[in-house]
């Protein structure tokens, strides 16, 4: 299971990196989303996978018995997903506004804030 997840994380990172390097802004946004998912799954995998053993103290005892699934990575992922959702929603709206205003989604055409102003004659 860990091996499978590791492969998936790798594939997601590869896809994300490829998309982020594209010129089309839609693809860049999808790339960012993929990278976010890859990071979430990475936390999940690195936080050790333990099947069918939630971190609850059994009735009648006052100690957790090994093995149990670490709840912290799950809490981290939950937080990260919520934050990622908000940020991605903002990015998509920003992209929509930008497409309406500038009329292009080609990143190569968005150079005006980087270039020097043309010389005055």
């Amino acid at each position, binding site marked *: 299971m860990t091996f499978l997840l590791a492969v998936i994380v790798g594939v997601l990172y590869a896809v994300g990196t490829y998309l*982020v390097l594209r010129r089309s*802004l839609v693809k*860049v946004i999808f790339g*960012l989303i993929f*990278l*976010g998912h*890859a*990071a*979430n799954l*990475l*936390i999940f995998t*690195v*936080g*050790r996978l333990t099947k069918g053993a939630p971190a609850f103290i059994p009735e009648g005892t006052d100690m957790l018995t090994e093995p149990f699934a670490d709840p*912290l*990575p799950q809490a*981290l992922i939950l*937080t*990260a997903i919520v*934050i990622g959702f*908000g*940020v991605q929603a*903002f*990015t998509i709206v*920003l*992209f929509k*506004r*930008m497409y309406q*205003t*500038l009329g292009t989604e080609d*990143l190569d055409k*968005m150079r*005006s*804030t*980087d270039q*020097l*102003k043309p010389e*005055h004659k």
Partner: protein
Amino acid sequence: MSQIIILPILLPLASAVVMMFFWKSVAVHRVLNVAGTAMLFVVSLVILANVLSKGILSLQVGGWAAPFGISMVADLVSAIMLVATALIGFTTALYSLGTIDEKREHYFFYPLLQLLLMGINGAFLTGDVFNLYVWFEVTLISSFVLLVLGGTPEQLEGAIKYVTLNLLSSTIFLAAVGILYGIAGTLNMADLAVRVPLLDHRELLSVVAVLFMITFGVKAAIFPLFFWLPASYHTPPVAVSAIFAGLLTKVGVYAIMRFFTTIFNHDDAAFIYQFLLIASAFTMVVGVLGAAAQYDLRKLLSFHIISQIGYMIFALAIQSPLAIAGALFYIVHNIIAKTNLFYVSGAIKRLKGSYDLKEIGGIYRFYPLLGLLFLVPALGLAGIPPLSGFWAKFVVIKAGLEAEHYLLVGVALLVSLLTLFSMIKIWNEAFWKDDPRGSNNIVDEDYTHIGSTKKVMMFAPIVVLSAITVVFGLWFEPFFDLASRAANQLLDTGLYIQSVIGVKS
């Protein structure tokens, strides 16, 4: 008493929430914004006084004991950064009154400003790595909205670059947090400081250190990672540029300072300092050369932010107590001088109607006082005695000489000469030469329509910050003593650990 350290986070949050209730009344927003930031400043000073007298303050949020819950920690470094943040928040609150248009005010400009301050304060106070990620995101999302508020094509284009690169750095941060938890089993900074030196898998630890380095490098705008900054900082209204320029990159520098003194201070991470030394030289040089080519006032100043970050990184990479103290003093000096220069650029724009240095001129002839107000932060930034920048550079360069980084010291000195050159360029073009539209062109048409209250609000912050730059320069000793104490406290990791989890390593 240590509960007080949660206030710099709660106060801006409360002001923002109350403002939202009065969403129709901009007047309430304005008053609350100024009052909120003024209170924040007082609270920050109280925290600083407390940390000075009682040592490091820490708070376990929700009463969960240290490695399990989220810790908030205020040591001297955090407290000093809090005071600087609140000062800039307060002056920007005043400056916004004088410069922000009513439409932006209606679209929640002030609540966003408060949320930005909350995020920055949270990042300075937290003692938990994942919590730091959350505060970074709070800061980021408020800065995203502040950056695009108004929605001009230029702003949207700058925002795309800013948003994309910062989100990318956030995903790297998240991955680093995940791997760090996987190998260390904790994310509490104090607990990490205890456990990291004892861990196996040193090579993985180096990977994590590099990932953090890249994340914070993007935030701090270090050499190969800074391209989002000059592409976006000149697009929003100047009050927004000013607070971004003053504070956002410094959060990144602070994070580097915290991580690489408290957590990754063992030998395996030493290669990071080598990398930082080289990167700092390139950051200084590339930033200042970028600035020299510009004729847009705000773009020129944006490139200078990068160049100045180089000095701070240089000082951090030296790692001696003197250098860390120098870095800290440099950060505070730079926050004040840089923000002030952006304020001045906004005043110039309102006087002359343009940011383009080729289109303006002759300000000194009719407004000699503004000339003086520009020269204080400008010469301060370049490092002319007796202003604050001179001492900041003096300490950093002295620390560099003591550590025998002669080449880098040479670079630093050369770069400060070039900094002086580009400040003089602004002086010549905007203040000294005649206005290209004829010397009868005293002020822009629009300036005559600005009310006198607004003008006072615009110039008061400039006067205050210039005065602080002078005070820092003339009464250098007490401020530097404070910075030295902070640096010693930061380098003595035992104090930090003891304050948070109660055992000395």
